């Protein structure tokens, strides 16, 4: 028993070290005063914030100009907020329909929600590009928002559906007797009762959009529409890679997901697994 415990603790410690060492190095690299071609250290003896300043306000030359990352962060924020709003607007009524109304085809629709949640959208990158291009929406915020929303909606519907189905029928029936229409029931009863899943799924949608790489890669063609991941990736392509600055921007970029994750932890790791775990 004691031997098992010791072995277990040693392995757990090793795993924690492997998990955190790269993050620590990211932080150290971001504090390096040199711009290019330096040997990374385990401890930075002359820490400097120059990479943070340069990344946000520095001059990047021709194609990117001044303050490139301020622009990338702004784009990430615009697309993220757009995706959040649209994903909630689409998934709340749809989830109400699937949770509270029984009609021919509702089971098929529920299955389609599950299938579209599971299928990896990278398999559809060619048709998605062709489609967004046909609408003239390549290199626009709207194009990215539409495509990203499409792949977040299934997860949101799935969670909302489960939640809406658990709202007691009597509450809805009494509103119905008072003559309230379905849209009214949704806006004045369902939504006020669902504040916590709305906040959690809104956050989930925002973070997913914030982290998205592939869809922005295929749907943006100019630097003024790049989100932060694309900006980081773009700078990797130069002759000399400014690693210190890339790591500084990477860390700043990672702050919102980290904060949101720890604030809404219990909602973040669920989804279809919630049902699977119970069984």
């Amino acid at each position, binding site marked *: *028993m004691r031997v*098992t415990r010791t072995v*277990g*603790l040693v*392995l*757990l410690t090793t795993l*924690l070290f492997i*998990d955190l060492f*790269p*993050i620590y190095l990211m932080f150290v*690299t971001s504090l390096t005063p040199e711009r290019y071609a330096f040997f*990374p250290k385990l401890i930075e003896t002359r820490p400097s914030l120059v990479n943070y300043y340069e990344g946000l306000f520095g001059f990047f030359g021709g194609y990117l100009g001044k303050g490139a990352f301020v622009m990338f962060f702004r784009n990430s924020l615009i697309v993220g907020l757009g995706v959040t709003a649209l994903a909630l*607007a689409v*998934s709340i009524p*749809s989830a109400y*329909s699937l949770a*509270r*109304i*029984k*009609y021919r085809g*509702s089971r098929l*629709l529920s299955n389609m*929600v599950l*299938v579209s949640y*599971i*299928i*990896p959208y*990278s*398999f*559809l*990158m*060619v*048709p998605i590009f*062709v*489609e967004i291009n046909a609408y003239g929406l390549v290199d626009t915020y709207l194009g990215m928002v539409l495509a990203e929303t499409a*792949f977040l*909606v299934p997860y949101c*519907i799935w969670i909302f559906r489960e939640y809406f189905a658990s709202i007691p029928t009597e509450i*809805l029936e009494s509103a*119905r007797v008072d003559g309230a229409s*379905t849209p009214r029931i949704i806006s004045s009863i369902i939504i006020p009762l669902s504040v916590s899943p709305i906040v959690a799924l809104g956050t989930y949608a925002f973070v997913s959009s*914030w*982290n998205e*790489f592939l869809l922005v890669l*295929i749907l943006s063609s100019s630097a003024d529409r790049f989100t932060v*991941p694309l900006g*980081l*990736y773009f700078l*990797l392509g130069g002759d000399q890679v400014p690693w210190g600055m890339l*790591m500084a921007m*990477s860390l700043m970029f*990672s702050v919102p*997901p*980290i904060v949101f*994750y720890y604030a809404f932890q219990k909602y973040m790791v669920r989804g*279809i*697994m919630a049902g699977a*775990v*119970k*069984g």
Partner: protein
Amino acid sequence: MSSTDTKPTSVVVYGYALASPFIIFLSLFLLFPLAYEVFISLFDAQFQFIGSEHLRRLLVDPAYTQSLTNTALYVGMGVNLKMMLALFLANALNAIEFRGKRLYKALIMIPWVIPIVPSALNFRWMLDADYGIINQILFGLGFPPGGWLIQPQLAMSSVIFIHIWTNLPFWSLILLSGVQSIPVDLYDAVRVDGAGSWHTFRHLTVPLMRRLYLICTVLSTVWTMGDFAIIWVLTKGGPANATQIVATNAYRMAFEFGDFGYAGSMFLLVLPILAILVILLLKLLKE
């Protein structure tokens, strides 16, 4: 679940009307793209109809067949190693009591919480053959440095490692909630019978966790088949196609060489495997 609307026709109309935003997105971004992928695979880069010519070409295209074996290797190794580690981690966290366990559980999630592009960039810098810290440390300890991302034999292992590093926390947490749902009485009963921890694991945890483990493995297989960003940022499928998977290969065909039909057919050939896995998963979830 009960319906709140009563009249049959209005029920159907209301049901579909409220679900219409989802139906529109489903049609535009799943059903239409799937149909279009089939359609476009029948045409060449100049949009001349060529029928099944692309599928025939794929079977003898060495870059494509290599991307198939690479995908199988990446997914097979990545998913299974990750799941075994996740099962170990979940069990260890459930069975061993130690101080700071809550903090430990919060800290090991960080690789999953950090966005994938920053993580991949960081590993690219750490594993750099000339400047990377890993080679510096190895050199300092008297070991030979490695071309982690530029040597074909090593690159695939590096990419698989980074896949596991990023995704292990998520699956550990899922499996942990599964292990925790096993009633404590059962553990006590087995322990009274004098079973050691290995025996408990083998005869209690394994049979009870089987279904969840299987669901997680299939779901993770499907998602890992769709991985793109990790490999694209780390190696772009190189060196010499050593880490080229179907998704990165098709991306290059479509967006670097402009052959959409051929790129679409690359996905089309893998789609049946994906479909089988999705059906299997739906069956498992409904059991």
